[in-house]
């Protein structure tokens, strides 16, 4: 037997009501329940009456005279649209700053660890960005809502109507996507074949004999599975892009993930400590008549700049992709 069900029921309704009406509603509700029960006080009849009155949450909303919203239906569409845009921008920016952070201070040992760290850091950043985007946009809209409540709604005028959008539904060019796919596949195959089969022959040659390898080969070997994985994912997603030829949330998400993954791996790879062989630096230093240290420094500066450019271009690419995606979704609706 549940104890004090009626009291608990009434409490559950009245606690959701404004202070000033609580006492009165409580008294009245008790009286009503009492009347509905009549002489029968069994557990069954109590249950029947309370179920008839319905869920306390719903009953309480009926007692309230004013409808309450965080975001009212009139503003909901605008809210969602702004939210999407702000989320795209904040997530992109957090991705970009994450990449920069990674370039400036890598601190893991093995390639797998480093990629894991970077991905978890990037996604952590992006998640935080999503949450703060949500919080800010919601608070601002809530403020607008409150302000509107106080002042009378402005008279609506014809001049408020938006311009018609100019272009047609944005689509992916199928030819472009297929060409991209082919080029991507060819490069990936050449690059990976080179790494897998001819790694020992990658170096600086003098009179057709290799005098210095470019890479520290054991590091490259450790990266090969990651590079193959990233290339395969990119190729699959490019194929999907050519197949659908129209941006959707699903496609854009897969595209973003594959892009981010590929960029992260590329950046980790080129920034990896001791990727390039000291012998190569010495050789180049010999040609240029400067110290091997200067060559090494020049290399790492160049790589950092390249990484940041890569981060920026990817960020821009992703922003454009998502904007196109939401446009194409709005068109198809």
């Amino acid at each position, binding site marked *: 037997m549940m104890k004090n069900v009626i009291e608990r029921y009434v409490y559950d309704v009245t606690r959701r009501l404004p202070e000033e009406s609580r006492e009165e509603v409580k008294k009245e509700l008790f009286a*009503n329940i009492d009347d509905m029960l009549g002489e029968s006080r069994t557990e069954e009849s109590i249950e029947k009456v309370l179920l008839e009155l319905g869920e306390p949450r719903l009953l309480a909303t009926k007692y309230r005279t004013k409808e309450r919203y965080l975001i009212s239906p009139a503003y909901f569409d605008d809210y969602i649209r702004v939210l999407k845009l702000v989320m795209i921008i904040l997530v992109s920016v957090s991705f970009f700053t994450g990449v920069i952070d990674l370039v400036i201070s890598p601190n893991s040992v093995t390639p797998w660890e480093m990629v894991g760290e970077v991905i978890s850091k990037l996604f952590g950043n992006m998640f935080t960005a999503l949450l703060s985007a949500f919080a800010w946009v919601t608070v601002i809209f809530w403020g607008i809502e409150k302000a509107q409540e106080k002042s009378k709604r402005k008279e609506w005028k014809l001049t408020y109507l938006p311009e018609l959008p100019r272009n047609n539904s944005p689509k992916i060019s199928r030819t472009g996507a297929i060409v991209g796919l082919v080029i991507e596949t060819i490069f990936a195959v050449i690059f990976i074949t080179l790494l897998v089969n001819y790694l020992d022959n990658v170096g600086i040659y003098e009179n057709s004999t290799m005098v210095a390898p470019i890479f520290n080969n054991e590091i490259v070997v450790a990266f090969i599975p990651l590079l193959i994985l990233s290339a395969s994912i990119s190729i699959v997603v490019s194929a999907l892009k050519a197949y659908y030829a129209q941006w959707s949330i699903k496609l854009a998400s897969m595209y973003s993930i594959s892009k981010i993954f590929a960029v992260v791996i590329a950046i980790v790879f080129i920034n990896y400590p001791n990727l390039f062989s000291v012998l190569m630096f010495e050789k180049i230093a010999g040609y240029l008549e400067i110290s091997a240290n200067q060559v090494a420094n020049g290399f790492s500066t160049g790589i950092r700049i390249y990484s940041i450019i890569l981060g920026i271009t990817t960020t821009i690419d992703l922003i454009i992709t998502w904007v196109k995606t939401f446009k194409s979704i709005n068109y198809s609706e």
Partner: protein
Amino acid sequence: MSDVSLLSNLIVELRRGTQIIAVLSQLQENQYGYSLLQKLEEKQISIEAGTLYPLMRRLESQDVLISEWDTTESRPRKYYKLSDYGKEILVELKNEWYKLVAEMDALFKEEI
């Protein structure tokens, strides 16, 4: 299947607008929540208890109904009835109702 629930939704929607006039019409005399519920039920007007009680309170806050607690009996009860303002409102609503019925009749006759 969904047609059945669509139809019943539409019926609920249609009837919802008549709830207030039905309730007001039965409040010439003092009624407490449950007695009004039963009175409406006897006349085949079905309204949920969870809808009726808050509605009475709302109408009171809008000065359409007046209420008083009767604490002389073993069970305290809150009695409601039409205020003078409420009576005026009911007359107007009834006029509107007859107009509505006539308009709808005219519409439906055209169709046949």
